[in-house]
């Protein structure tokens, strides 16, 4: 399985082989979400707009 490095915390994010351009992946360590960018069969990521949940205490 391919891997990309999270821009937020530098953890490895696994990228399933059947992933597609534009798909959203989440970093298992810091929960940041990224949009997959596919060039050839290489993957890279760019920040994705995800509404974070909040306790709203």
């Amino acid at each position, binding site marked *: 399985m391919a891997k990309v490095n999270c821009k937020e915390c530098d953890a490895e994010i696994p990228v399933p082989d059947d992933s597609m351009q534009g798909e959203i992946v989440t970093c298992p360590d810091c929960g940041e979400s990224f949009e997959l960018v596919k060039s050839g069969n290489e993957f890279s990521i760019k920040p994705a707009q995800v509404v*974070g*949940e909040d306790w709203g205490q």
Partner: protein
Amino acid sequence: MKVGVIGASGFVGGELLRLLVTHPKVEVSMVTSRQKVGEYVHRIHPSLKSFINLTFSDFDIDKLTDKCDLIFVSVPHGKSNKIVNDLFKRGIKIIDLSADFRLKNPDDYVKWYGWEHPYPDMLAKSVYGVPEFHREEIKNAQLVACPGCMAVTSLLALKPLIQNDVLDTEHIVVDSKIGSSGAGGQAGSATHHAMRYGVIRPYKPAKHRHTGEIEQELNLLNNKKIHVSMTPHAVNMVRGILTTNHAFLKKEISELELWKLYRNMYGKEVFIRLIRDKNGIYKFPDPKFVIASNFCDVGFDIDEDNKRIVAMSASDNLMKGAAGSAIQNLNVMAGFDEMTGLRFTPVTPV
């Protein structure tokens, strides 16, 4: 490996037994308690029914050293040092859960505990029982002093920052919150359910004795004199600690750099988990997710406006804060895998 437990009628002693009776490499051969001599262990700790058939025996040093390879001492602070000293002379391995051998400098006992240490020469022979700080020394130690519960929790959050010298070491505020089992099993007005329920009770806002250990261990990491300003609070929980460590950064540091600092330090530690989640609802460490496990969850946030870092850590005061650390130290001393008898998933919700 045969072990004995001295002073096993309290919460910490009970938690120690709870872990020992299912530890695959250990057999509990003796359990002593001055007040409960002759009583079945499972009648004092009913949850252990069907796991242990021993009765409490009186303290007999010959029997103990004869029947045990290692002894846990879990008696109140101030009462432990004589027992430990006598056992030490017999050459047996000791894990002490009291505060009596945590500090290296004899003067610190007067300063933080208010009593003169009767065996100052022993202090150099004891190792502060946090493998994430002193793993190599613990391997060869005959005497290991388990840490104070809030101390170890705070230390684990601060270590990467102090060791990498990114903090102003004069203004470190440790604001901790702890459950009622941290006050020990003795009955008293402070622990009466009707008066303990639902409180957020600051106690010893200054000069709390765990401060001594925290400063001692942080100073070893960074030869500057570190000052820690600690205030604990008793909160409406039975188990659990959250320490919120407020510190001021000496220089700009990005979240990415902080992640690297923490991951380089703790990446291989089986009992430290880094908790910092941008978008989920569980963003930072919370004792809710470590209860009954030996984990210390560590996380951080940056307050740019005030150049402040908030390093948070959560543990179970009876586990990583006491009995869990004792077993982890046993594993290190005996050369077992550190998770032996400690591979527990936290119990959530509870």
